């Protein structure tokens, strides 16, 4: 395989996309898919024997930490972690320093993203400084290509502000307002799920109702304004039920869940290891079951990583003093296969829908997630679905090490990732 070949064939794999499933070779030429056929010869080969060839994954929710916390992650390193995880596009979250509430900052993120091994879409803040008070310049950010507006990390707590943001965003076709649904007056000061474990451990809790009350309110505001609301990283049974009801009534809402919310529970916090601290927090077995049910019946549209790197020192603190967040980009696909597809919770095409084409639609990323057919941009992921591997934090590409899955055995690993025709990951190794 020559460096950055203009033409190559992904050979011997099973092609799975929104249109179906077939064994085929995929010829890539000049950055686009040139042919999908039973046998393609004559081009350099990217071996896919025993693998699935799928549209590149799309992450609606990645904290790339640039600008401001480049010790923890940069756009370059975060994109590399994303590519190794099978993603060809990620949406960068706005809680940087300075935050993404300004056109110049967003432009700098987009510029850095153009050099990266994964497409980087920028979110934009809903409110200035993510303070939940005055609107950020949504029109200026929209003009730069921002489609997802969020104050993520912070909830827009004031109903009146959220209502005005939704009204204002109504002028921007394709824009979606994404809410970190945790009422600050209920969750503030809390560090883990409020319940059996928080009461035993004496750690202040974040109750389930902190999420559900905001979801209930914002469903009504979506209905009032007609502007789509996307719920970030839902974690509770009550919130999943509210979204299900809203969709039944055709309210324009979408929702994502993060792999840790269908994999881990609040019982993990009993060791006081802040690797398990995240907002919204790890919940109960019943919530995990509800999240899975929401994925299974289509209530949940997307699996998003909430990749949140922190330097080691930040987590070398007591649980209550450590910042929330955990790595996710390099484990999301394998966790989806291990926790959802292998046990039969989600059929493979539905899992891929949640990881690729449905989030691509929400984020307005036309070049990603589409069917693998001639003329389409070659944004592809080749995954070996059978290989077993163990998560070793020291071998992750992220600049940070705060994975809660150290030592965990997972099924399925990304072998190759192709970004606009460039093999950026080959045999599990980032090419630049």
């Amino acid at each position, binding site marked *: 395989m020559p460096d950055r070949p203009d033409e190559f064939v992904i050979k011997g794999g099973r092609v799975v996309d929104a249109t179906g499933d077939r064994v085929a070779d995929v010829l890539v030429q000049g950055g686009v898919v040139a042919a999908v056929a039973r046998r393609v010869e004559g081009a350099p080969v990217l071996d896919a024997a025993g693998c699935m060839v799928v549209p590149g994954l799309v992450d609606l929710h990645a904290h790339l930490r640039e600008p401001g916390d480049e010790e923890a992650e940069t756009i370059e390193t975060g994109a590399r972690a994303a590519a190794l995880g099978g993603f060809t596009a990620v949406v960068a979250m706005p809680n940087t320093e300075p935050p993404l509430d300004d056109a110049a900052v967003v432009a700098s993120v987009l510029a850095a993203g153009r050099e990266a091994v994964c497409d980087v879409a920028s979110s934009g803040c809903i409110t200035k400084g993510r303070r939940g008070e005055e609107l950020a310049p949504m029109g200026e950010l929209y003009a730069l290509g921002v489609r997802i507006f969020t104050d993520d990390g912070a909830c827009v707590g004031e109903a009146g502000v959220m209502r005005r943001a939704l009204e204002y965003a109504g002028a921007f076709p394709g824009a979606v307002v994404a809410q970190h649904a945790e009422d600050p007056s209920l969750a503030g000061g809390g560090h883990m799920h409020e319940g059996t474990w928080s009461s035993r*451990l004496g750690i202040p809790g974040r109750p389930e109702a902190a999420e559900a009350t905001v979801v209930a309110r914002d469903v009504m505001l979506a209905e009032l304004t007609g502007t789509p609301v996307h719920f970030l990283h839902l974690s509770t049974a009550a919130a999943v039920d509210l979204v299900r009801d809203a969709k039944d009534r055709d309210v324009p809402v979408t929702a994502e869940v993060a792999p840790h919310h269908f994999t881990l529970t609040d019982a993990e916090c009993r060791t006081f290891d802040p690797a398990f601290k995240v907002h919204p927090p790890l919940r109960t077995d019943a919530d995990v079951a509800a999240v899975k049910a929401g994925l299974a019946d289509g209530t949940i549209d997307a699996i998003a990583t909430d990749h949140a790197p922190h330097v080691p020192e*930040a987590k070398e603190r*007591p*649980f209550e003093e450590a910042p929330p967040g955990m790595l996710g980009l390099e484990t999301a696909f394998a966790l989806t296969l291990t926790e959802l597809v292998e046990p039969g919770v989600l059929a493979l095409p539905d899992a891929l829908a949640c990881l690729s084409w449905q989030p691509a639609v929400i984020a307005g990323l036309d070049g990603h997630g589409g069917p693998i057919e001639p003329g389409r941009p070659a944004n592809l992921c080749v995954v070996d679905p059978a290989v077993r591997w163990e998560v070793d934090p020291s071998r992750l590409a992220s600049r940070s090490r705060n994975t809660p899955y150290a030592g965990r055995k997972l099924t399925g690993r990304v072998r190759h990732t192709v970004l606009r025709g460039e093999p950026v990951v080959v045999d599990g190794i980032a090419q630049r």
Partner: protein
Amino acid sequence: MNDLLSIDDLGASGINELLDLSESFVEVTRRDIPKIPALRGKTVVTLFYEDSTRTRLSFETAAKRLTADTMSFTAASSSVGKGESLLDTVRTIEAMGVDAMVVRHRCAGAPHRIASWVDAAVVNAGDGRHEHPTQALLDLLTLRRHLGTDAFSGLRIGIVGDVRHSRVARSGVKAFDAVGADVTVVGPPTLLPESLEGWPARASTDLDDVLPELDVVYVLRIQRERLGAALLPSLREYTSRYGLTAARAARLKPDTVVMHAGPMNRGVEIAAEVADSPASIITEQVANGVAVRMAVLWSLLGSGGLVA
């Protein structure tokens, strides 16, 4: 067993052995020269990230009476917040050569984190709302010395007040249950734990209902900051519903004892005349603290492990 982080580390037999050992150290503390060379050459550091003169002095006195060398580190959590990580701090201190770290921290689980990083023995001297195991042990010792060795089985203990925010209660419930007592936590719903699942205790919001059957009333401190957090309407209302007033004390069984972990808000959770009454064994609690901490330090450093 290298550390004492939680009452869970001990079990009933471990608790009883520590109490037996504590009894012998009570005798030591009453000698003309209350000092034995049991831990000569050992170094004990008190690492206090939260102010507590009483507990720190109690541990340092215990260490000195065992002839250990002592060092003291105090830091407001906030000033450490942005700078040196907890890990760096404890590694630095350990490098000076210490055998035990006695840790007080405003955050639950801080001693557990430290214990995972250092070889030195770690003693939890209070971590956030989580636990305060030596307080529970000294409470047990005080009760046992007052009521007799066989008094725990079926003993009815009411822990009254701000159970939700109390490490004294979390350790106390486990310790009292372990030795066979029957524990009820009492307080307004806003000051009881959000969930009592797995707690070996009953709960009540009505002190007057519970009071007549109690053998021990364990009164917890009420903090003014609970008012600002909309947990209580007023201290006056708290006192009227949950304060151990003279009128309530008069309804106790004749031999019921009153305890408090201190510092007391006289006139709020406990009336001054009740705190100073013959039923009160509060002063004995303080006196027994040193002996219990001697027993803990000696178990960890002197005999190669906690007697568990």
